[in-house]
């Protein structure tokens, strides 16, 4: 029977939840990195015991952590010393420096700030880690201020892929309310050169040459907060999801609007359909049914909680437009939590488990593709991210 491992990043540490394929009884381990924000954790598809974690503190900045045993022990890789006098592994892996070399294109020095002025790029934190599909030592990092970095030595050292920041539209990017973050990285499962990323508030971008050159893929997005609602960049994309078996089809939760692309992002059309509100952050796709999509509708950009105090997931089995409310086991009243952009995930057990975490500290699971829900844990710190590994 398969096992599942749920990686939960919270405002005050990381937690690892494990169960067998029935997903009924859970072991909860943590907090790891207690007291630190853990924006994201993710396991390598090529080696499930290799995990990466983004550990952040307002006081002490960014630390990258790595595990080689499925999260039982961790190390900060890199640096000139591998063992402390006490015998613990130590190192330096938190060095993210924007590429300003003249050899790599057009490195930028500023982007648009909240007040419309140009502002220098300043590294703040890693929002998202995306391990390579084939190499456990290769991992991508999406950071704030928005850029993408890559490590090919297991998070020991990081190098920017400057073609994204330097391709020309960078000065028009601006921070959303949460900062100017690169929060989504999707590796194409069939084309190793193709990567999708998304930035708030710049939009979606794609490379077809392994990250050397990038182009905006925002045609069809409309954003009322922009003077030109169809602008090439400036859209507040909240998250993008893809089914691994069909990498050319993408689903997007934008600030407002749920969108779909059938041509690898070259064009988008709205599929919000009968959703009660099409604002939200999280979106994901069923592991085995590429037309089955999940969102968590949030009331509005000013009121980041569910409609009428009822926490609901909506599921479309038609690739959008026709949505059904999923309520069984979810709070019926007085629920005013949020579900953040990286806080929803699916497993690949045969009947596909769906997971999401809330800013109220709950992590919910549906072991039957959304029909029935229950909390795995109720009282964690606010959940920032949820990822799931399905283990043999």
């Amino acid at each position, binding site marked *: 029977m398969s096992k599942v491992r749920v990686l939960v990043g919270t405002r005050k540490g990381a937690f690892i939840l494990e169960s067998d394929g029935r997903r009924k009884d859970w072991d909860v381990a943590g907090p790891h990195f207690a007291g630190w924000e853990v924006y994201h954790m993710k396991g390598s598809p090529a080696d499930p015991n290799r995990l990466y974690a983004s550990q952040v503190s307002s*006081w*002490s900045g960014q*630390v990258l952590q790595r595990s080689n045993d499925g999260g039982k022990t961790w190390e900060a890789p890199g640096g000139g010393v591998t063992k*402390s006098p006490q015998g*613990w592994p*130590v*190192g*330096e892996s938190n060095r993210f420096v924007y590429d300003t070399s003249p050899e790599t294109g057009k490195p930028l020095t500023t982007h648009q700030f909240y007040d419309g002025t140009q502002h220098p790029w300043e590294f703040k934190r890693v929002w998202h880690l995306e391990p390579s599909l084939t190499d456990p030592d290769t991992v991508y990092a999406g950071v704030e201020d928005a850029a993408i970095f890559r490590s090919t030595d297991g998070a020991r050292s990081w190098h920017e892929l400057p073609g994204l920041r330097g391709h020309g539209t960078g000065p028009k990017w601006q921070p959303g309310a949460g900062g100017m973050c690169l929060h989504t990285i999707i590796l194409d499962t069939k084309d190793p050169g193709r990567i999708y990323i998304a930035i708030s508030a710049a939009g979606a971008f794609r490379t077809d040459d392994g990250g050397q050159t990038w182009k905006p893929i925002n045609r069809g997005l409309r954003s009322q907060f922009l003077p030109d609602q169809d602008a090439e960049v400036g859209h507040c994309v909240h998250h993008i999801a893809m089914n691994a078996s069909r990498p050319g089809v993408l689903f997007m939760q934008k600030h407002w609007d749920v969108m779909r692309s059938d041509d690898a992002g070259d064009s988008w059309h709205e599929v919000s359909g009968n959703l009660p509100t099409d604002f939200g952050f999280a979106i994901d796709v069923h592991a085995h049914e590429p037309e089955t999509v999940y969102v968590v509708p949030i009331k509005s950009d000013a009121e980041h909680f569910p409609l009428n105090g009822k926490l609901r997931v909506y599921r479309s089995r038609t690739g959008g437009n026709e949505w059904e409310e999923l309520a069984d086991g979810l709070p019926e009243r007085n629920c005013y939590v949020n579900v953040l952009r990286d806080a929803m995930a699916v497993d690949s057990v045969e009947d596909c488990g769906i997971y999401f975490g809330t800013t109220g500290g709950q992590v919910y699971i549906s072991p039957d593709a959304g029909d029935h829900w229950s909390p795995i844990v109720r009282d964690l710190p606010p959940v920032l991210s949820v990822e799931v590994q399905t283990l043999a």
Partner: protein
Amino acid sequence: MVRVVLPSHLRTLAHVDSEVELDVQGVATQRSVLDALEARYPVLRGTIRDHVTLQRRPFIRFFACEQDLSHDSPDSPLPERVADGTEPFLVIGAIAGG
């Protein structure tokens, strides 16, 4: 020998239980003490001062001998009682929030 006291979250990160004792080359200054600290515990690079500019992170403070040294030049000599190990050099996480 200079004694350095780290905030608890950095002690955890560096896997040290108590204060750190460092042999500092030359004059004991903020810079030379932090250089020695980071050489011994590379995981602390970037957590107390910026990787590139080496400026103190905004929410970090340096105290010693009941004085706030945070705004002193990083190359100013530390108090003699810090340099000779009588008093510790304190790295403090500033109060932030309510």
